[in-house]
């Protein structure tokens, strides 16, 4: 069993995970690893045919030298419409390999069948994100190894500083040619950018591209250049289009959520951030605030230099209208986003490397003005949680959430309680953001500004918005909901390690008995 050490936010974190030493979190921006970035074996052109097609995935895996204990990487651009992951592990199980480390950039409900392979030992543990049933499986201590939770940027960081070495990178692509040049904007399963796959392409020892839309060379744009690709496999169907498009991109009709979104837009204007660049999301409030903010920008004739996102039809309309200068896109949430990325030169595909990576010489996230994000919990010192719920269950991945906290104004927006459970708590179950990263908490029943942001407190002094202290928000929640019981966790048995963007151990998820 792993030893535990107390880190800079006072959380007990494992000193070792799956045989690898862990550096405890030391404070934001404090960690500076030394040495060179990870490299890949030198390939020679002479070894690669013009046509890299292989008959099927199994043969490609055999040729890649797959064996027990390897690490398999994949991207999540197909979201819940992904058809590769489950088939891949069925094949690997069939081939008799075991104890694999699976490193997806995210998982979705469609991937629940992986539990069978986790139980049987085909998969040893997951590094990346664990959602829903797989998260539950992990929380109850049933995964063989320790789960590692990383942000999108953290995945690049871990690959580049050598903590995560991907042996075989699998890249399902909506469109590819025989050299392996691939993109996500063409073909029947178009999904938008393929940026999450770029790290696998560049750093995996072997790279397999799968596609259901093989086009003659050259397949342009080649977001994934064929020079990184070992094998190309044609499959019948790569994704379910209607599930690739996230179901969360419709603007919420919930009056409470709309009210919160209006509070957010008003706060942004009063705090002097109208016209700043912003991070755009797909879900509920982080989508809804954009329309209210856009209304205010329109009324004042103000434009924002760019939006980083998460593209949606709403964002595309703002781009066309000229209210935003560029969309710097990490993933498309709907077909309008995909089309715009294909056709509009001011709609740019980005990867987590350019956007979020810690081991780069600056990144896009640092240039973002406003980020409006959700959370499962926030506490009295403004620490926030996005992976576990108050009952101790691990149910969500970190995604780009940690990376976007570096905006000039970071707002968490959510209802004060959900289904009776208060979101503002005394102390979060799991720290995913140190308190200094969260500037404002906006709820329907009040807004709290982090006291560290004196500038915002001063600017909002005469606001008509319901500005309160975070303690008052907590009291309001308790008065309505009553005090919840504390879940009983086994605090000497971490089941997953939550990483900060620099690769250090920020917190742990502890075992929750079934």
């Amino acid at each position, binding site marked *: 069993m792993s030893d535990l050490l107390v880190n800079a936010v006072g959380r007990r974190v494992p000193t070792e995970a799956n045989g690898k030493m862990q550096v405890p979190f030391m404070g934001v921006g404090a960690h500076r690893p030394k040495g060179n970035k990870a490299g890949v074996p030198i390939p020679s052109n002479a070894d690669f045919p013009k046509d890299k097609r292989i008959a099927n995935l199994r043969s490609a895996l055999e040729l890649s030298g797959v064996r027990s204990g390897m690490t398999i990487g994949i991207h999540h651009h197909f979201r819940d419409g992904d058809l590769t992951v489950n088939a891949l592990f069925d094949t690997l199980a069939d081939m008799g390999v075991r104890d694999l480390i699976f490193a997806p950039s995210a998982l979705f409900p469609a991937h629940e069948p992986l539990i069978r392979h986790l139980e049987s030992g085909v998969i040893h543990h997951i590094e990346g994100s664990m959602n829903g049933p797989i998260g539950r499986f992990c929380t109850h201590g049933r995964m063989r190894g320790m789960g590692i939770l990383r942000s999108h940027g953290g995945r690049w960081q871990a690959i580049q500083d050598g903590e995560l070495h991907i042996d075989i990178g699998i890249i399902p692509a909506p469109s590819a040619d025989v050299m392996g040049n691939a993109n996500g904007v063409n073909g029947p399963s178009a999904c938008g950018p393929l940026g999450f796959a770029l790290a696998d392409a560049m750093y995996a020892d072997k790279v397999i591209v799968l596609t259901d839309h093989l086009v003659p060379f050259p397949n342009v744009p080649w977001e994934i250049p064929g020079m990184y690709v070992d094998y190309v496999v044609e499959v019948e169907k790569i994704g379910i289009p209607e599930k690739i498009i996230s179901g969360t991109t419709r603007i919420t009709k919930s009056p409470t959520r709309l009210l919160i979104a209006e509070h957010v837009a008003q706060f942004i204007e009063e705090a002097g951030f109208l016209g700043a660049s912003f991070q755009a999301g797909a879900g509920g409030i982080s989508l809804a605030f954009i329309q209210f903010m856009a209304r205010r920008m329109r009324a004042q004739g103000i434009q924002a230099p760019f939006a980083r996102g998460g593209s949606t039809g709403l964002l595309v309309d703002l781009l066309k209208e000229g209210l935003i200068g560029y969309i710097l896109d990490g993933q498309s949430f709907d077909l309008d986003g995909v089309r715009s990325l294909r056709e509009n030169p001011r709609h740019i595909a980005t990867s987590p490397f350019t956007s979020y990576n810690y081991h780069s010489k600056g990144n896009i996230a640092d240039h973002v003005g406003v980020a409006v994000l959700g959370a499962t919990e926030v506490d009295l010192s403004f620490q926030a949680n996005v992976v576990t719920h108050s009952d101790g269950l691990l149910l969500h991945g970190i995604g780009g959430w940690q990376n976007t906290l570096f905006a000039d104004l970071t707002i968490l927006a959510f209802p004060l309680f959900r289904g009776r459970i208060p979101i503002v708590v005394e102390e979060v179950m799991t720290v995913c953001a140190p308190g200094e990263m969260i500037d404002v908490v906006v709820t329907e029943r009040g807004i709290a500004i982090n006291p560290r942001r004196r500038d915002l407190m001063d600017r909002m002094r005469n606001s008509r918005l319901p500005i309160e202290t975070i303690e008052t928000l907590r009291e309001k929640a308790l008065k309505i909901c009553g005090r919840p*019981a504390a879940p009983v966790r086994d605090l000497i048995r971490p089941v997953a390690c939550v990483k900060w963007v620099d690769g250090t151990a920020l917190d742990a998820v502890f075992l929750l008995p079934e």
Partner: protein
Amino acid sequence: MSVSAGRDAKEDILLELEKVESDIVEVALESPVQSLYGGHIRALIQRVLHESGVTGVWIKAKDAGALDWVILARLESGLKRLIPGFRKNLAPEKVWDFRPQVPRDHMRRSRLYLPGMQPDLMTGAALFQPDGIILDLEDSVAPSEKDTALILVRNAILAVDFGACERMVRINPLPAGLGELPALLDTDGVDTLLVPKAERAEEIGQLARYIREYLNRTGNARRIWLMPILETAMGIWKACEIGASCDGICALAFGAEDFSKDIGARRTKQGTESFAARSMLVLGARAAGVQPIDTVFSDVDDEAGLLSSTKEAIGLGFEGKGCIHPRQVRVIHDAFRPEEAEFRWAVKVKRAMDEAHAAGRGVVALGSKMIDPPVAARALKVLKTAAFYGMVPEEGGADE
């Protein structure tokens, strides 16, 4: 024998109660908040049953995040259905400071209807800042649930923070509605009762007497305002009589849906079929010295339609409009905001009045025009509304 109470719906709880041959009370709970509130919910139910001396009951509870005041209401309903003669009220403690009672001529631009069986809509209703909220026991409640809705509404009045909103309850038509009064009046938290299908002045007078006597008997100094809803041809015909039937009446409201049915017309968006009736209601209410209040606008998605319908109502002389969705509140309030030109005119009139007063002149004039007292009064009313909306005169704007 087994009964049920409550709903399998958001923020509610569905209880099934069964008598068993045993002295104990058993509670089987299914809930998404099981690990955080399961113990609390079971203990709450056990404690209440113990204090009520109830034993030999098996309770199956399907919870969906219900708050304590909802659980208590559903439990009381279930026990009353299961045990004839169970009289105990399972009312929550009053945790919010009620603001003072509203005056008779309270601002009533918007009133938000909240179905009496839906606790999830009640909890956050005040956040949308309607002038009043209406807990509805009439049309939104199925006949078989009238008993449980009354208990839920009573608990909501005690436990939910309705903020600055006027707390209204729409009771059932008389005489059935009379039976609902004790539970509502005992809360000491109701401001106003809406009385549907009002047609006869005597009936309203009797209701007012009943309320007065009940409050006297229970030593309660509260004043309850009445807002009869006129929604039949007869009601409209008697508008003035009903409005003047007692001094507790604050307003007359129009009910378009039932009215259209009553006169055999189809309800339209333009409201031609009810135009005369609405005008008659305004006349009757004004003659009786109470506020005329318009019906609801039922297309929630049509904000432009709501805005023009409200402006039309204001033009006819109405002082308020009903809302069936929180989104409608702001649109209605926007409609009541004085127009800039009207505001500038009112500022000028007020200046002229002040100057005349300072000069000791009895006659007020604006340029070459005389300002009659009713015109002056209207200007003052516009200024009062404008002040409420935070409108300030532009520098020197009044003298241009």
